């Protein structure tokens, strides 16, 4: 007898996806994540477009990760045409990207993950009892959004970030305002660490074979941009070689390809960054890392939630430092002229959900080839493995409990399954 347990639409993940667990008399027969994943199809839209036009399309793939898409695409494009930005421009890009990181982590932790642990179906129903937590979520999200608003001009589509630098820069007073608000946000981030340190990391999905992948930060400080990828098995490879080491395979049940490293699933995300790069943390986050090291487990995907909480503290402090560096160099020329040349550029950056890979090939000022792999696509295979582990431990339990635990497992990865459509139904 087969009993299919289906979650048609995983509540509170970004986009649309479903989990299908097929049970037989003697256990779990099959687990499938049915995913509709958008970005892959967007590559096609940009082929043949002028480079600047294409760079306006990429951030539209996702409202929530628009800075990540934009800045990764810009770096790939600059590499393609043989341009390297000045250090102060790179610092400003780090600040924008940190805005994305803060906004995304705050939403994920408080509005997506926390309701499960507190026994609520959605954040709205939490409001009476946990108003402070919802307000912290919105305040943290807002400082992230404000950073992107000030530096990237338009809050959603980042049109101010361009090849060669920025269209225009915020005023010194705006940087000072951001710094002040980031300082005010720091206690909320520390509260987040304390709160999430108390939440269970389910042992059912402990996986000693977990392999984590993260970009090796370029400047020796825990961060976002880099030229190499580190794997937790000790291997490193240049970002240009990602298509050799991150091998995508079509799977029958999903529109999205699954990714493998040396034939096996792997994980990317906040916990993967911590596993590979924790020694590069500094400041309060370094102290918190020492205090909570046992919770930052390489072998449990639920540790990703806590890793995001720790990163909130880190990235807020890091943004303050980068703003100080920026102000020390003020005034800054926003943009350098870039000469268009033919070429191919690869950029791998650390998006909130893990490695985001872009390859852009430029010919006669137009995009001749583009390849995008999102962190969610990289995580799909290992996500499926861990849902299966959870299902195997709970197949005799109440199906509702199994559904919830399976959804929580998926949510721990903070997947962004498809940000492409949002229409309402009448």
């Amino acid at each position, binding site marked *: 007898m087969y009993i299919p347990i289906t979650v048609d639409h995983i*509540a509170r993940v970004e986009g649309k996806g479903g989990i299908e667990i097929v049970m037989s008399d003697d256990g779990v027969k099959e687990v499938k994540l049915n995913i509709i994943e958008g970005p892959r199809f967007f590559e096609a839209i940009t082929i043949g477009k002028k480079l600047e036009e294409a760079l306006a399309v990429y951030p539209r793939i996702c*409202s929530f990760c628009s800075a990540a898409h934009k800045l990764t695409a810009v770096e790939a494009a600059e590499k393609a045409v043989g341009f390297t930005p000045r250090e102060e421009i790179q610092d400003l890009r780090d600040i924008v990207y940190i805005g994305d990181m803060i906004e995304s982590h705050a939403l994920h932790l408080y509005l997506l993950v926390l309701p499960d642990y507190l026994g609520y179906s959605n954040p709205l129903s939490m409001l009476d009892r946990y108003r402070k937590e919802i307000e912290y979520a919105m305040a943290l999200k807002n400082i992230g959004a404000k950073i992107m608003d000030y530096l990237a001009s338009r809050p959603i589509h980042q049109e101010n970030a361009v090849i060669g630098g920025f269209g225009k820069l915020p005023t010194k007073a705006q940087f000072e305002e951001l710094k002040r608000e980031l300082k005010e946000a720091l206690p909320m981030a520390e509260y987040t660490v304390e709160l999430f340190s108390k939440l269970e990391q389910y042992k059912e999905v402990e996986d000693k074979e977990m392999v984590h992948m993260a970009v090796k930060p370029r400047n020796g400080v825990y961060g976002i941009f880099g030229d190499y990828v580190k794997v937790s098995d000790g291997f490193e490879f240049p970002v240009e070689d990602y298509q050799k080491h991150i091998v995508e395979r079509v799977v029958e049940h999903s529109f999205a390809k699954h990714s493998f490293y040396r034939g096996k699933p792997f994980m990317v995300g906040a916990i993967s960054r911590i596993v590979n790069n924790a020694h590069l943390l500094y400041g309060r986050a370094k102290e918190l890392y020492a205090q909570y090291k046992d919770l930052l487990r390489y072998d449990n995907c639920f540790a990703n939630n806590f890793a995001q909480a720790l990163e909130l503290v880190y990235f807020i402090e890091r943004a303050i430092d980068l703003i100080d560096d920026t102000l020390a160099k003020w005034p800054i020329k926003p943009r350098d002229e870039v000469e268009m040349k033919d070429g191919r550029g690869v950029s791998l950056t650390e998006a909130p959900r893990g490695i985001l890979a872009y390859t852009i090939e430029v010919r006669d000022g137009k995009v001749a080839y583009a390849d995008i792999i999102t962190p969610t696509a990289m995580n799909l295979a290992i996500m499926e493995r861990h849902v299966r582990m959870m299902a195997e431990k709970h197949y005799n339990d109440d199906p509702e409990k199994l559904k919830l635990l399976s959804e929580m497992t998926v949510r721990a990865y903070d997947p962004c399954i498809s940000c492409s459509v949002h229409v309402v139904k009448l």
Partner: protein
Amino acid sequence: MESLILALGNELMKDDGVGLKAGRILAQKGYNVIEIGTDIFRLQRHYNGEERLIIIDAILSEEFRPGEVIYLSGEEIFEKLKAEIRSAHFMGAVDGLKLLMALDERLKNAELHFIGVVAKEVELGMELSEEVEKAIPRVVELVEKLAGN
């Protein structure tokens, strides 16, 4: 009475971009428009206490024909747009709006209007279908009527 126009959608998905395209026309005419995209929470940072909110978005409907303009107001918005599909992201725009209203008394008291255009094609592409394109002047006209004090 001050109005804020919220343009929702994703213009990479054909008719889903109708809200943004109508919103840009209104912005050029001098109206107070914010492009929300697929993240309703952007509203919070850009809300300055306007007493009237006008949401423009694409809708899917089996009952109405592509290009039809549907108008809802007040509570009716939450009652009729319950079943959000493929909704952005964890909560969907309507539930997200409810949360924001619970957090901000001014928003809770604001007059709410929703203008939806029935989509024909919601798939990869940057062009609107002919039916939806033709609906834009009606959307603009309706917003101007609502926003006129």
